[in-house]
């Protein structure tokens, strides 16, 4: 299964999921993304910047490695989940509608990230 397939499968499995993206927080680059409608490059770049910001905050407060892999950002309109592979800069970003099931997204996202990281 390709990276693109995995991202698409995850997006299909999560209700109200708009974007699933895989990127490198250190390089600040989204490497691949799956989305229903067209998402401008600037939006993907801003997701990458926010992921880097969240992980930098997690490192600064000394979050333990097992827990540092997760950050959730909620706004008026959507929820954004960032999951980072342990000791790696790889991260997965899941953007869903405001009232989506965060726990389901975190669980399924972690599973997908493990598969992607393991496959590489």
């Amino acid at each position: 299964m390709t990276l693109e397939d995995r991202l698409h499968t995850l997006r299909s499995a999560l209700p109200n999921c708009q974007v699933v993206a895989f990127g490198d927080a250190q390089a600040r680059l989204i490497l691949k993304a799956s989305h229903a409608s067209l998402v401008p490059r600037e939006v993907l770049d801003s997701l990458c910047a926010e992921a880097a910001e969240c992980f930098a905050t997690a490192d600064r407060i000394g979050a333990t490695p097992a827990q540092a892999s997760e950050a959730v950002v909620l706004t008026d309109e959507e929820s954004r989940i960032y999951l980072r592979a342990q000791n790696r800069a790889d991260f997965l970003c899941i953007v869903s509608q405001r009232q989506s099931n965060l726990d389901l997204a975190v669980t399924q996202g972690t599973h997908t990230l493990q598969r992607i990281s393991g496959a590489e």
Partner: protein
Amino acid sequence: MIAPRHQKPTKGPVLSDAAEREMLHQLATKRVPTYGVWRSVASEAEVLSEIVTEIGETLLARRIRVTARNSAAVADMTVSNRHLVTLEGIRTSETLETAEAVVQALAQEFVSAEALKFEIIARAPKLTHTARSWPHVVLHEAFQARGAAQDCARTSLIREFEDMALSWINLTAHEENGDANQLALLKKITVALPSQGHGTTPLQCNQPRLTLIPIDETMLFAEMCLNHTRVQLTANIHDRARLVTRWQALSAGSQTET
């Protein structure tokens, strides 16, 4: 014939202070007609302000279509003499009777709009003979009241989150409360905020936002940006669901209640 010297001054419409201030502000602001081009909007208040201002500036009868760039949202407004005469095209199950209902429907329709476009689709539309229309002043007041109600709900939520927290720092009000060690932990982030020093952009606080990051198996870090107030806190990890639920309820409320 000589005109009478002591003629009574002509009376204009009675306006509230806020409406008068808004009108003076509009007079002082040079506005270029921008039909057919995208106008960026960053919040619900900006969306409503654009639409209500457009109504207030339309004297001759016009049918105006409002569209959003990033969604299918659309509203067809018939406006005449600074009155909204009809509002069509929006997806709402509510009966539009009061100005509050109109403002609410517009807010809901353009909830995720990042840019709006106004187009005149008819220059002399047939006006329906109805007793009901919504004057600009009344719509403006409904818009202001909606903003005030939201501010109040948001301020309450900030207090609620501070009560739920183990420790918190309100960076805007320069207040703090809680355990010294946890406050020291929060200040590590606060100190890093202005420059960050890691090549990252400082956390922005101009849009409502709640960030949750687990610290360990018992505690989480949260940062809330609301009403231009930034609060950082530590909370019990078991309160995560409660924080999320309250936040989502506020977001839902801002889009469904007036």
